[in-house]
């Protein structure tokens, strides 16, 4: 009755350490650990599966160590998955090929191509997403060049309009992010992530550590951009307030596993899993 998913993830698993056949069966919330008792490996993500639809905001919550940041990095190919499938369905003609292609198994060139043409990411630490000593315009240009933009005038115009969209004074386009405040750095990261008109935008704890008023401004910006550009977002946060504000559906993770998924108001008002009940009742 509604459109097909944009992103399908199945059995996504990341194990740090040697790994053994018993890892997945001996870790997770029911064992209260993500460390395999047989080989000592850490199961950061175990058999994670979900769909993300077009124009949808999916929240991922969980405490530190639940595997939510690992999940984002696997999806952005920042690290190699131990196992699993990731399908990115494209709305345009390229669909037939991408639909069946497991991107996690693709070669490095293909991953890079998909990453620069289809994805955007915003990290909690700006230094992961930006070159702090290169101008903010240059940071955006770098990404546009990766997505095959060639004309310097076009690139400069595009960078300027993106910075405007993310409320950065374009007079500061030639300043490096190092000279910016934390909130501004996040907004430059957002501008950079949006530069290639991504199908999928990944946000990893983007407002954690910012002052409350700065946090509010960044969240408002994300909300407005999502609505205007009809973006599909995966929003990772330990902050239930951020999830409530942004996400329509929410996934709760613990010890590398998804313990519950549902509509955000349902997960927050009537959490099913013992861990989510604890999480919600711990809110200030």
């Amino acid at each position, binding site marked *: *009755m*509604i459109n097909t998913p944009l992103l399908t993830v199945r059995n996504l698993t990341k194990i740090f350490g040697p790994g053994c056949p018993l890892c997945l069966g001996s870790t997770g919330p029911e064992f209260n650990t993500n460390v395999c008792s047989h080989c000592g490996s850490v199961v950061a993500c175990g058999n994670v599966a979900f*769909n993300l*639809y077009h124009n*949808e905001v999916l929240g991922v919550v969980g405490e530190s160590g639940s595997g939510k940041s690992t999940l984002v990095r696997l999806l952005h190919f920042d690290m190699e998955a131990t196992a699993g499938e990731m399908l990115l369905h494209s709305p345009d003609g390229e669909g037939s090929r991408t639909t069946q292609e497991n991107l996690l198994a693709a070669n490095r060139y293909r991953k890079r191509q998909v990453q620069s043409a289809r994805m955007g990411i915003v990290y909690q630490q700006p230094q992961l997403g930006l070159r702090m000593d290169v101008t903010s315009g240059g940071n955006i240009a770098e990404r546009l060049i990766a997505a095959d933009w060639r004309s310097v005038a076009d690139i400069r115009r595009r960078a300027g309009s993106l910075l405007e969209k993310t409320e950065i004074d374009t007079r500061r386009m030639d300043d490096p992010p190092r000279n910016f405040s934390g909130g501004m750095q996040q907004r430059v990261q957002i501008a950079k992530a949006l530069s290639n008109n991504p199908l999928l935008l990944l946000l990893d704890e983007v407002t954690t550590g910012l002052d409350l008023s700065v946090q*509010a401004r960044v969240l*408002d910006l994300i909300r407005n951009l999502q*609505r205007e550009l009809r973006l599909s977002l995966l929003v990772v946060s330990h902050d239930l307030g951020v999830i409530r*504000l942004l996400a*329509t*559906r929410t996934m709760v993770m613990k010890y590398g596993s998804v313990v519950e*998924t*549902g*509509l955000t*108001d*349902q997960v927050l*008002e*009537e959490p*099913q*899993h*013992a861990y989510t*009940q*604890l999480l919600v*009742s711990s809110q200030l």
Partner: protein
Amino acid sequence: MLELNNLSKSFHLHLFDGKVIQAFDRVSFAVQEQEFIGLSGPSGSGKSSILKCIYRTYLPSGGEIWYDSRTHGRLNLATLDDHAMLALRRHEIGYISQFLNVIPRISAVDVVAEPLLSRNRCSEREARRRAAELLERLEIPAYLFDAHPATFSGGEQQRVNVARAVIWKPRLLLLDEPTASLDKRSVSLVVALLNELKKEGMTMIGIFHDASLHDALADKRYHLRKGDAHHVLCH
């Protein structure tokens, strides 16, 4: 249009040694198109939980909720998948509680215009114009349109809440005491508005504590005792 069939809801509280609390048990009733069904009953009888189960804020524990969707046919909301439920929330089913739950930084007129912008894809100017018109009709003073509803009185907030809930004209509207802190004058404005929307075709299920509101709005009233629904009035 909507049919509840032995619907039950219980809560499992893991933090209290798995204690189970029964909100309501095997409730059945039907709602015809363009009908206004009133729900009454003492606090704790499960009225709000019924509405939340229909809207999927709560997951039903048993029974069925059959809904005749305008575009998708007959659906069981008790087991419908999340995306399909979201589509219904977007296009057909609305919910309003007694609390205005919005972001503190947005002006009253934008709070009310927002459902139009995200659903009906109308222009920002048109959405704001219609929002202002509705606020005016509910007698929110014009100088408050650009102020933040968090700073409003309880009664003003509730009227903003009503405007936000009805502006996109959902096909089925679930109302959980939306007039609880309104004065007489404001209640009569809201009643007139709801009756007008009903004439235009909106179907509603409403919880009110004040019996006179049931008289003014409802075609039928179901009174809940602990656990089940009993049809007591029909007029």
